């Protein structure tokens, strides 16, 4: 029954129709929302007592670092759905997430490096959090290369999905790296189990920017998925009628 539901409502044709209608409005809405969150964080919050104004990079670095990991988890879920139920759309979405994930991870590393210059006095340190995030970036690039190297895209989808499921073990390592090892990178200021260690004046725009950035990046994933569907389904009859 689940299989029937998925095949009926999660076909590339149905997904494309919905994405074509709502993809761009979603992207524009969250882009403006994130822009608003950034203006709030950059210009309407006080400077940090220790870091001064450089802490404002938090409104870009934290949402990007969070999304870099979330995208890999989503990719693992869609890959598992593809391997279990052989749902083509799941493979297309998985493949579409990889370049967006690589871009977001690159930006997380870049913004962290820039933040490190005034804060730590160095732009790079081989500590556990930074190194495991670099590994995540390399994994995204590896997955993109792997998929591109196959002529047979069905085979590529299978190898890609299996590798994503193996690579997802890096996510808890990134998350826990600041607790398991002694790192230059600080531990999390916001957790689900304890009170945030960040002042509400800075916390609210941060939460707002994280939510808006999640929406913005999923908007990009929708756009990327549309592109992948068009590439992969171009000989199907329904595509001729769009």
């Amino acid at each position, binding site marked *: 029954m689940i299989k029937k539901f998925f095949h009926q409502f999660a076909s590339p044709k149905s997904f494309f129709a919905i994405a074509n209608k709502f993809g761009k409005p979603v*992207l524009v809405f969250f882009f403006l929302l994130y822009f608003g969150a950034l203006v709030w964080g950059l210009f309407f919050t006080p*400077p940090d007592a220790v870091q001064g104004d450089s802490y404002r990079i938090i409104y870009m670095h934290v949402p990007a670092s969070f999304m870099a990991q979330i995208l890999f988890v989503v990719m693992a879920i869609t890959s598992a759905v593809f391997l279990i139920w052989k749902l083509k759309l799941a493979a297309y979405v998985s493949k579409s997430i990889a370049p967006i994930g690589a871009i977001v991870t690159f930006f997380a590393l*870049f*913004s962290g490096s820039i933040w490190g210059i005034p804060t730590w006095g160095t732009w790079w340190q081989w500590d556990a959090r930074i190194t495991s995030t670099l590994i995540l970036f390399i994994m995204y690039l590896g997955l993109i290369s792997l998929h591109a190297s196959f002529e047979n895209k069905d085979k590529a989808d299978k190898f890609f999905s299996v590798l994503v499921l193996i690579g997802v073990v890096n996510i808890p390592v990134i998350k826990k790296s600041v607790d398991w090892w002694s790192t230059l990178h600080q531990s999390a200021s916001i957790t689900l189990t304890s009170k945030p260690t960040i002042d509400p004046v800075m916390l609210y725009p941060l939460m707002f920017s994280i939510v808006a950035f999640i929406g913005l990046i999923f908007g990009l994933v929708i*756009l990327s998925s*549309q*592109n992948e569907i*068009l590439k992969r389904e171009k000989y199907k009859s329904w595509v001729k009628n769009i």
Partner: protein
Amino acid sequence: MNQDSLINILSMGDHGFYVWLVVIVLFTILGSTIILLNRKIRQAKKEINEEG
């Protein structure tokens, strides 16, 4: 708000350069990704229409 306080807010003290650098890179990446994806989708649709 006078001009001096506006300049103070925008310059963000000694570390304003780092913050602005990250802002510029972020919006360059986001903007170019959106433009590139839109162009690819438009091109794919055009090719499909021409073949069809």
